[in-house]
């Protein structure tokens, strides 16, 4: 099952490293990363595969949100279907 991780916040050293490590801890495979600075804020979108994740979707979301809290970023994970539904016919 694929999901989308989005990260928005103030740019700083180590954001990608911290998030990738956290995802690796839960055995989540990263499929694609796209990152940019939008209007001064760091914006990253990752496509990930959570089929082999070692935690439930809810726990994974909570762990990422907690990491976001520590780093002053908004980090969320959502199933890919919602974006497909809204933006493709």
């Amino acid at each position, binding site marked *: 099952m694929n999901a989308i991780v989005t990260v*928005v916040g103030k740019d700083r050293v180590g954001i990608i490293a911290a998030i990738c490590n956290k995802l690796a801890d839960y055995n989540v495979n990263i*499929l694609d990363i796209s990152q940019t600075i939008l209007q001064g804020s760091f914006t990253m*979108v990752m496509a990930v595969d959570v089929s082999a994740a070692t935690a439930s979707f809810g726990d994974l979301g909570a762990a990422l949100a907690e990491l976001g809290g520590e780093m002053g970023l908004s980090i969320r994970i959502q199933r*890919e279907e*919602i974006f497909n*539904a809204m933006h493709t016919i």
Partner: protein
Amino acid sequence: MLNQQDILSTIEMIDQQHLDIRTITMGISLLSCCDPDPKRACDKIYEKITRYAEKLVRTGEEIEQEFGIPIVNKRISVTPMALVAGASDTEDYVPFALALDRAARTCGVNFIGGYSALVQKGMTIADERLIRSIPEALSRTELVCSSVNVGSTKAGINMDAVALMGRIIKDTAAATADRDGFGCAKLVVFCNAVEDNPFMAGAFHGVGEAEKVINVGVSGPGVVHHALQAVKGAPFDVVAETVKKTAFRVTRMGQLVAQEASRRLDTPFGIVDLSLAPTPAIGDSVARILEEMGLETCGTHGTTAALALLNDAVKKGGVMASSSVGGLSGAFIPVSEDEGMIAAARQGTLCLDKLEAMTCVCSVGLDMIAVPGDTPAETISAIIADEAAIGMVNCKTTAVRLLPAPGKTVGDTIEMGGLLGSAPVMPVHPESSAAFIARGGRIPAPMHSLKN
């Protein structure tokens, strides 16, 4: 991979423009609960609802978490209770409302709808018993919502029921006077009520429906408002196209959530209701959309035309996004639940007569409107008759949910709290309609119903 801009725009809609699923409502048929013994019937009702809806709230929360989309309400609608209670040997129907309330609490839902009677052509003994029990039922329960259908395009308007409902609304306000007549916020009088409406207070599970069903109501006034800000000054064709595109996206999300909920709860998917349902939060208002189209204040000249465009474009955009559209499907204009409407009513620009005109072109009707506590029952009945006539003649659903707050008068505000918001008391015409209402009988169905 998905376009990054699309992903971020979805997140912005959810975070900053109040995009949400307004409700997942499980409809449950209670016809199998009929029993001559009222106590046994109530036990069956409680048991069936709690069995069918046991996982409703939990499933809703799981979907919310996985898709990252807020699902504001989880609700239950049931068979109009007069049909079920009518089988029992009792004159007291309040225990049926208490059973619904208990079941709703056990399931953890926000509201349960269906303490209802359909009396558009005439009242059965059970219908009348149920209607007369509404004030006590709504004052002794928290989560039960009640509705009465008094007219339809096919049957005309049952003016005896209209007269009775004016008194019932006043009695309900009196029975909940300690909370500004809060009971009336849970009571709707309909013309052309629909059987698959997921929204409260008017939801019930019609007799033409399946054993159980999942209906979903979407929202998104904030998203539409935001989209229109990008087309300032553009012609109405552009406005309509923009609303359609936005409604399509919002509805696709609703369809996804509905299918997912239906699968996980092993319950057939019914409909997606394409309604723009506002909340009292800033940036989640239908009135502000109309003002964005170029009106200084909602309620001024042009408001009805703006609302007609909005309502139609929402349907056109939404209908392609869902496999099955139903319910009320249109823009709601509940005064107390819409920050812009509250402001326009306070300012005096938005009045009852203008709201009545607006209901000719949009969903539902005179909704969540506070009127003076000393408004005569006959005046309330006459307001219901006017609104029912609009529904009957135009083949659409109309409704009245008035709040005659005891002891309050024009200039006061009543506070309902939460999603129900606050309502400035609006003036009604002081001239009497009593002799009109005293006639009783039936207003015949209009000519265009005779198509067979």
